[in-house]
């Protein structure tokens, strides 16, 4: 065991997978000599060389498209998009090529790519360094989407994603990069895709969340604990496909569901979660399915006051949980 942060966990996962499987390569802007703007690939170019850690021009469609082509021909590329906000030039390649190639080739082609993208706000990055874009990709069958909240999961999910034969979009909440540390085993392990984690057991209310908001939610749960409201916090970890069993088992137990995400509300993951719960556990519910999310505005505003207004926080989550628990 050693105590590492999220960025180190990602780097360790990349390094170990590259050492174990020479089909694993990395492509992205400034990932080579400099080791990435967040240092996620620090030292890997020095170790694995030009052929396996490849600096790319600023051309996201080509970064992901080349990764897809390489995957179809037998490699296991990990593409880095510098910020999730810049994934959109590659949207067509991801959604029209990666997500559909297995289906359209009737299972002939595998597309084992991972697209890593730092997401989320809380770092004063303003409109184009703060977006949470996971919902767009959760609407695309053929993709898998993961969003770890801590170093253990970051490492285990990335290893699982690299070994997975299908395309995985891997969102890293950059606000967790250096703020969250864990004891992480040095031995090889994976965190299976599609399995949520119950971070805190509770009787009164189920709180469903992922990424940076897991930490705000756990804090909110501690606040409510003092008020005798017992919150069960579930870290979804994989957003597509969702772990319906864990979600529904918890909601059937607590009869109340609170969903928290940073992305804006309309058409967000919370909408899908709410629909699943109403379809599958309606008769168990004792209160309205409630969402605490970013507001429906085009992007993160820059001013610190406005960023704070945008971001869900432990206080906002606790308020919503209190109201829901009162039903």
């Amino acid at each position, binding site marked *: 065991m050693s105590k590492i942060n999220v960025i180190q966990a990602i780097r360790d996962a990349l390094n170990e997978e590259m050492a174990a499987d020479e089909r694993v390569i990395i492509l992205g802007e400034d990932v080579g000599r400099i080791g990435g703007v967040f240092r996620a690939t620090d030292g890997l170019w020095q170790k694995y060389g030009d052929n396996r850690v490849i*600096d*790319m021009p*600023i051309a996201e469609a080509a970064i992901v498209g080349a990764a897809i082509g390489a995957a179809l021909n037998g490699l296991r590329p990990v593409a880095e998009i510098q910020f999730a906000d810049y994934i959109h030039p590659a949207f067509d390649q991801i959604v029209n090529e990666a997500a559909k190639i297995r289906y359209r080739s009737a299972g002939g082609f595998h597309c084992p790519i991972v697209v890593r993208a730092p997401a989320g706000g809380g770092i004063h990055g*303003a409109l184009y360094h703060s977006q949470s874009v996971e919902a767009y990709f959760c609407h695309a069958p053929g993709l898998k989407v993961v969003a770890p909240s801590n170093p253990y999961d970051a490492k285990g999910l990335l290893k699982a994603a690299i070994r997975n034969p299908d395309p995985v979009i891997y969102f890293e909440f950059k606000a967790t990069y250096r703020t969250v540390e864990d004891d992480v085993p040095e031995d090889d392990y994976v965190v299976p895709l599609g399995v949520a984690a119950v971070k805190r057991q509770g009787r009164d209310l189920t709180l469903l969340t992922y990424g940076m908001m897991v930490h705000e939610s756990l804090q909110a749960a501690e606040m409510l604990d003092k008020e005798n409201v017992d919150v069960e916090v579930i870290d979804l970890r994989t957003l597509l496909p969702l772990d319906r069993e864990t979600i529904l088992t918890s909601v059937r137990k607590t009869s109340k569901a609170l969903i928290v995400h940073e992305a804006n509300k309309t058409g967000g993951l919370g909408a899908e979660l709410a629909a699943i719960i109403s379809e599958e556990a309606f008769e168990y519910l004792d209160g309205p399915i409630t969402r605490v999310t970013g507001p429906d505005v085009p992007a993160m505003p820059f*001013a610190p006051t406005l960023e704070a*207004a*945008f971001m869900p926080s432990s206080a906002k989550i606790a308020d919503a949980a209190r109201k829901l628990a009162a039903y």
Partner: protein
Amino acid sequence: MAELSKDELLEIYECMQLIRTFEDRVSGLFAEGKLPGFVHLYAGEEAIAVGVCSHLTDDDFITSTHRGHGHCIAKGVEINPMMAELYGKETGSCKGKGGSMHIADVDKGMMGANGIVGGGGPLACGSGLTAKVKGTDQVTICFFGDGASEQGTMHEAMNLAKIWKLPVVFVCENNGFAESTPVGYHCSAKDISDRATAYNMPGFTVDGTDFFAVHEAAGEAIARARQGEGPSLVECKGFRYYGHFEGDAKAYYTEEMVADFKKRDPIGKFRQGVLDRNLVSEAELDKIDAQAKQTIEDAVKFAEESAYPALEECLTDVYVAYA
């Protein structure tokens, strides 16, 4: 140089010096922890923005980049609101909503700095199309970096501008690096302006640290655009003094490179050039230097004394509001 009057030369010097003073001060403010977020500084590239924009009026349009402060100042955006925008204050050009990377000013034809690399190319074509449809003589300038020249949008835009014969000038600011990646690695062409041949438009490479070279090439390209002769590509080769963003460790800069930057300083060169030819006096230039400092200090004071936007502002400007 001959066709510029003394007043014009002084104005040009003032504008370049304002940009430099703004950027140096912002670097200091950032280091003091006074500015949230990311700032990308334009110091070293002043001759490009000013060499191009000195041909424009408020009716002309520009699209800018993440490194946009110089474009803003050269296009006439007011300094106080710019500085306040960097602080995220309610008196900022965009009420503190955008920050350094997204300063826009409708009245000045400044279509916005842009956090998306390559985002401006197609927008410039659309703006050019408007001028063509309406029959005005407005020109749109698209500033973009060497790194941006690899983005698909830029290629789509240059092709479109040519087939529609648009009044658009593509100004590539080649400062040698896209973040840490050298242009010699990321670019297939020897000179980025070589790509103009493929789009069948005039293309030139000029020394982007030489105001007069930029001014002349841009002047010709803008005149062609105004006369309905279509787009051009002007590549300006230069450098940026600071890192990609403030806080960048700049591991990709060597000592020799930095020493060479100082020798090629665009403001130093301009100053020497006009003094050598006795076009202006040293005292006149020194006075401008002092004024620029004062202007920037006033802007810092203005920004620091301004308030942060109220929380409700988070929810406004999503759709049009009818008063």
